[in-house]
């Protein structure tokens, strides 16, 4: 019986001209968003690859230089776009793309897309995720709001029940039918996405990208399912189709537009973050407690020198096999990097507390559960961004310490000498390894659970409520 009800719903949906127009529009939007996302992904990716290649070449082709000169020359790290970010750009437009890596300090990641745009960007970007998260639920609402009301008004509901079918089975039949109709709209777009992934060789052979795409699709299946169930339940519980529609639209607006903004804003108000200027000042203050690489009069530098003289059993700096300057630099770098890391961790912790509010809101609002889940799977969420920042910092630290070690090995009077150009070619350049799915999943447990809770809760409680609904 469920199957025949489902078939009836699917057939009558497909006969409904309004639905066909809307779905074709939605499908066109989805396909367009996939292609546009893909095109912009490629442009940005190429731009960053070229930039990274340029700075890497520049680094390798430096003339004879003193290693500390090279440490100040530094390098850049450009953030590559994650493989699936063409489906969900997530935070990518609002996070920086380039960070300058140099001795003594950690710079901010600059040049975000949003800084190069007008306030138009704040209306939201047209990505696949946007269509799936906000527009498809609207389609579902228009599809399902009169699921029961129509049958009730036409009197067919009574007829159905006389056949010995329970209300709950009718509801499941309708849910199945509508699910099939929605699948007709969404599946082609995801198939196109999969095909586009396949056409890119580096992703075609990456099981990680496929697993991400699979879970991405799966989470949207759950998301659409709970919208369909919710809409059918509301339709059954409301006397009139009109009130069901208004109620569902109200929920959509509250969940899709008002709540996400309100919780994010509230989080920022509750846990204020420190400004860059204050952070820099604090780091500077704390770093002063350590050794200062550029200050020969520093008392700690003198102590370090005295220890070295004792260790190598010589009486003057000239006789040391190592450069005191290089060792002082290395020690000061280790200290300031540690200070930076502490402050950086505090700042990120503040952001995580701000964001936690949004994640908890996922329990109230399925949109706020699917959004982080989708971004996380696409590799464009906050955790992935911090991962990049951390990788860039790790590389910076290793690079600078390697150069400090080179300086140390030059021995006394290193400042008067330079190292050969071939030295720089032996130093590895920055290569970012995006984190694997297993790493990302750790951050996604909360939203995934919230989404499942919604799906299970709605099917259980909602359908129990349907049992008690009036037939006339």
């Amino acid at each position: 019986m469920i199957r025949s009800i489902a078939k009836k719903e699917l057939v009558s949906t497909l006969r409904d001209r309004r639905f066909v127009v809307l779905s074709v529009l939605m499908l066109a939007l989805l396909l367009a968003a996939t292609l546009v996302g893909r095109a912009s992904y490629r442009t940005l990716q190429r731009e960053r690859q070229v930039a990274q290649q340029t700075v890497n070449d520049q680094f390798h082709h430096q003339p004879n230089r003193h290693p500390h000169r090279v440490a100040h020359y530094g390098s850049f790290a450009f953030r590559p776009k994650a493989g699936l970010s063409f489906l969900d750009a997530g935070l990518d437009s609002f996070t920086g793309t380039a960070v300058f890596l140099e001795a003594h300090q950690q710079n901010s990641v600059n040049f975000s897309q949003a800084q190069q745009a007008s306030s138009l960007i704040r209306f939201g970007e047209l990505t696949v995720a946007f269509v799936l998260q906000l527009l498809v639920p609207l389609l579902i609402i228009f599809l399902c709001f009169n699921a029961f009301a129509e049958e009730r008004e036409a009197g067919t509901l009574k007829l159905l029940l006389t056949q010995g079918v329970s209300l709950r089975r009718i509801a499941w039949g309708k849910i199945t039918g509508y699910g099939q109709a929605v699948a007709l709209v969404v599946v082609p777009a995801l198939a196109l996405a999969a095909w586009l992934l396949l056409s890119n060789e580096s992703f075609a052979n990456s099981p990680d990208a496929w697993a991400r795409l699979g879970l991405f699709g799966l989470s949207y299946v759950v998301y659409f399912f709970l919208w369909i169930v919710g809409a059918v339940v509301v339709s059954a519980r409301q006397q009139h189709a009109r009130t069901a529609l208004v109620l569902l639209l109200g929920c959509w607006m509250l969940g899709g537009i008002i709540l996400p903004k309100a919780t994010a804003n509230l989080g920022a108000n509750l846990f204020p973050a420190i400004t860059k200027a204050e952070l820099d000042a604090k780091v500077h203050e704390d770093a002063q407690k350590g050794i200062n690489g550029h200050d020969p009069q520093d008392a700690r530098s003198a102590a370090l020198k005295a220890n070295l003289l004792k260790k190598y059993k010589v009486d003057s700096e000239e006789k040391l096999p190592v450069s005191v300057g290089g060792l002082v630099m290395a020690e000061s770098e280790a200290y300031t990097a540690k200070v930076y890391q502490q402050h950086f961790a505090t700042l990120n912790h503040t952001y995580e507390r701000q964001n936690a509010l949004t994640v908890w809101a996922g329990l109230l609002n399925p949109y706020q559960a699917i959004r982080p889940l989708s971004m996380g799977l696409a590799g464009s969420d906050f955790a992935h961004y911090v991962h990049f920042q951390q990788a860039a910092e790790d590389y910076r630290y290793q690079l600078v310490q390697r150069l400090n070690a080179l300086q140390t090995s030059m021995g006394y009077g290193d400042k008067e000498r330079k190292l050969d150009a071939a030295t720089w070619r032996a130093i590895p350049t920055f290569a970012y390894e995006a984190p694997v799915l297993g790493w990302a999943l750790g951050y996604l447990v909360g939203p995934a659970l919230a989404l499942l809770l919604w799906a299970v809760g709605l099917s259980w409680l909602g359908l129990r409520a349907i049992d008690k609904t009036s037939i006339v």
Partner: protein
Amino acid sequence: MRTFWILVRYEWRHFRAAKGLVLLTGLVLLVGLYGIYYGTTEIERQRQHLATLPTLAHHNVEELKKKFPGPADAGDIGYYHTTFAVHHPTEWASLALGQRDVNPYYVKLRLLGLQGQLYASENVNPTKVLSGNFDLAFVLVYLFPLLIIALSFNLLSSEKEQGILVLLLAQPVRPGVVVAAKLTLRLLLVLGLALLLSAVAVAWARVPLDGRVGVWVALVVLYCLFWFGVVAIVTALQRNSAFNAVALVGAWLVLVVLLPGLLNVYVDATRPVPQGLELTIKQREEIHGGWDKPKSETMNRFFALYPQWRDTATIRERFVWRWYYAFQHLGDESVRPLVAAYTDGLRQRFALVERLAWVSPAVNAQVSLAALAGTDLPTHLAFQQSATRYHDALRAFYYPYLFRKVAFTHDDYAKEPTHTFTSTSELGTATSGLWKLLVSVGVVWATGLLLLQVRPLNPR
């Protein structure tokens, strides 16, 4: 005319009796007040941050005074001394935050090359900026149309569905008057709410009462009128309530959600600006190349730009600060065309958005309100320009010390130029937006009235 006011009064009673609608209106009022609270606290926080900057700069000077107790080489001071270029908001910024949370509102500057410092970003939580700001402009542009739709989607259809319209039109009253009375009450209600919120915001944010208040009010009123025009069109089609609801929400979706997204894609595709990455790479290459080039070559290039320092002593030392700052500046000079191309590209982007804003009155209203508040891209570019001039002034202040080898004393810190920049309203953009909005209003109302004329009201 009397019947008109009787009908308006009747509608008012009707509205008060409809608990759901009263609740909704009250909710929008509360949400609007939250928007004002949020906007003002956000700007207040930025103001507080800006207020801490002089203290930070002062600490820095104290530290330098301790580090260099006697007269010092100005080169050392220029290297270690940090100062700030600050971008103060207008009072209007609290009402429409625009891009003020995305773009840095101060820049930390040293005497080094400017291009390596100008684009440093502020600490922002990307998750928060992605969600966007819940300011008054958002409430007005996004949520007010929904209130208008909720209040009037069943303007005639509900009366028709309940069979009241037949009775009503049996009286000696023209159908046009009925529609006008119903629209008037809703218009008064919505405009009253919008103006009340605006007044609260103006008072709360201590906005100076000048002509800009008029522009704000005009923008808000016209934007609401536009949506009532859309309602008039849908009402004139005389379909059932469900159809009206779907059609109006559809219009909202297209104008407020879809078109802005499409416009974004279009602007990005037709006005790409990749020069940002390019110019920082080039500037670094140029500056660090300075260490390896012969000093005379660097100095001659510098003297071509600043002939007034040509007669200073030839450099024979291994390192001297004036040479160092000369190649820092030459690094900036080398990317001058790229910087111009980058900022031009951004300006063109904004100009394109402005030109296409008529496509969606929501985009138009948003861009115009942000322009009035001085919180959009052009204002940020103006700030960057002002910071550049400040950096020029800093160089002009330090050069005599460096080139004439004048010692930098503790008294000299106070003589250093300081910077302040307060955004101004982009009135040009706001008023042109106003005209475009006026045209949109004219078009929808003309269409609505024409439809009402052509299709006489059918009470059944």
